């Protein structure tokens, strides 16, 4: 028994990556970033605002948080809707109280179905990031290029039709892309996408698209839903992260703390108070610059 001899061939074993999507760069080697107003830690709040059809699709894969029981899965359909109807409004209130702005990664279906939400987001000065059509709109290699192009276009059209400015940022469901996605996002006119979690500052893909890393390890989904930790543990972890980044920023330049929030996870009655308190404490830190994805990428780009 032996493996195919090709298994011991390494055609891309050379300096740099085994792909041509973006160049290698160590964060330690880069010129220090300076955020506006002399702040050292950009805090980026990103909320995923999702609509789950009760008829889930597994093509190309079923989104995290999607229906889980046999049809009709009332429990998950309605628990996700709870996040949109109730939880999201708790978050909007919390942001207002802390005096901070967020990026709202919004399914096109939210804009089509609930245009009032779009108006409420815009009235509070938050940014809208395009986040696919609905939670059946997952992307992975195998999705036909024309279908992916249409999915991206529809996501934008739905948000614009609800009266919002055309989003300049994109987040894929589960951060999952196909080989075609970076080119299609560039073609659709996006400035930035948030899917690649390999860095802690923005950086440019070879095609010019900026990647703004939305750390999945720091998300409420990962810490609370996957790792089953409490809201208090979550807030402790975010403050530990902030403290560390603040120290690193003092010697290496501006850093970024991305907080990825899901309304049906964080905005439950028994968790929201811990989150509100976290926002209050972070907003009081003199190093903190709360900013949207567009503000962060704009500030970064001006220093390149």
């Amino acid at each position, binding site marked *: 028994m032996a493996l195919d001899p090709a298994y011991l061939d390494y055609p891309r074993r050379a300096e740099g990556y085994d792909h041509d999507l973006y160049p290698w760069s160590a*964060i330690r080697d880069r010129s220090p970033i300076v955020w506006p107003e002399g702040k050292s830690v950009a805090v980026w709040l990103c909320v995923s605002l999702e609509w789950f059809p009760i008829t889930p699709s597994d093509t190309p894969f079923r989104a995290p948080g999607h229906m889980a029981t046999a049809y009709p899965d009332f429990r998950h359909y309605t628990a996700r809707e709870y996040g949109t109807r109730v939880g999201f409004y708790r978050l909007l209130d919390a942001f207002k109280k802390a005096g901070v702005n967020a990026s709202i990664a919004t399914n096109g279906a939210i804009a089509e179905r609930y245009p009032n939400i779009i108006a409420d987001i815009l009235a509070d000065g938050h940014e809208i990031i395009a986040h696919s059509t609905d939670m059946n709109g997952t992307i992975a290699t195998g999705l036909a290029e024309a279908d992916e192009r249409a999915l991206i276009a529809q996501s934008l059209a739905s948000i614009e039709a609800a009266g919002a400015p055309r989003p300049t940022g994109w987040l894929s469901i589960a951060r999952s*892309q196909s080989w075609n996605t970076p080119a299609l996002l560039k073609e659709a006119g996006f400035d930035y996408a948030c899917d690649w979690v390999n860095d802690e500052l923005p950086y440019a893909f070879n095609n010019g698209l900026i990647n703004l890393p939305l750390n999945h390890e720091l998300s409420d989904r990962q810490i609370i839903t996957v790792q089953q930790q409490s809201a208090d543990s979550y807030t402790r972890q975010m403050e530990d992260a902030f403290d*560390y980044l603040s120290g690193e920023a003092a010697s290496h330049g501006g850093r970024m703390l991305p907080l990825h929030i899901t309304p049906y996870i964080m905005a439950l009655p028994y968790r929201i108070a811990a989150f509100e308190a976290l926002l209050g404490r972070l907003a009081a830190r003199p190093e903190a610059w709360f900013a949207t994805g567009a503000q962060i990428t704009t500030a970064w780009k001006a220093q390149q």
Partner: protein
Amino acid sequence: MQEGQADPGLYDFARYRERPRISWPGGKTVAVWVAPNLEYYEIDPPANPHRKSWTKPHPDVVGYAHRDHSNRVSHWRMADAMSKHGFPGSVSLSIGLCQHHPAVVADANERGWEFFSHGVYNTRYTYGMDEAQERALIEDSIHTVREATGQTIRGWLAPALTHTPRTLDLIAEYGLDYTCDLYHDDQPGPVKVKSGKLISMPYSLEVNDHYGFFVYNMSPRDYADTLIRQYERLAEEGAQSGTVMCIPLHAYLIGQPHRIGPFEEVLRHIAADGRAWIARAGEIADHYYAHHYAEAAHGA
């Protein structure tokens, strides 16, 4: 190993009492070594018939990018914390990293870290290799690390923990001194091989950061507490037995901003305690071979 036998015949059973006591240099009770995994995962690896690599169609963006975080951001964070508290690394190295990101390998080498092989990529598995292919992998490891660092590898942690029945015999034949793939003890011990000598170097899955965060789903502070408890127990027992504690790390896990602070407190605790011999795997192997191997291997 005894291929096909119910007992693979890797080592003799030895109960944890009435063993010869291992005495570490300076009268320390526990040898502590830190094993950063410096890895490269391919974005589009070929399929191995015995194990799938990525769970999603390529590119598995989160899987790949998460690991890439090591080589852009978190390696230096982890390494600085180790250097600050006086812990050298004994690196489990995807040798392909020598080609892809030589700056990362050079940084580890300049810090005085030791390297052992963890295969070419953590997306290429040993399962199904014939002997010639496995020899090619070992020879590639020896030559690549020597060229990149000037060091000759002395140990092995199979890529993604994938082995063949030949692996241990072959690495001993090539003159390697230790394997990190066996988890049967808190002390080094002889491993039975066809030719040459080999010892098992206690590594750890249980306190590996991957297990801590992705099997046991610990918070950063709970993982730090776990390491301190592991240390306290092994340091205490080591007064009678002489123990080894390994802290296996991945920068993309331990070097995340919410984890590195609590982890640094672990290093501070161990360094200040006084019972730890903070060493490289090769130093632990040298001491064991010089003072304890012959007695333990008697009749092995």
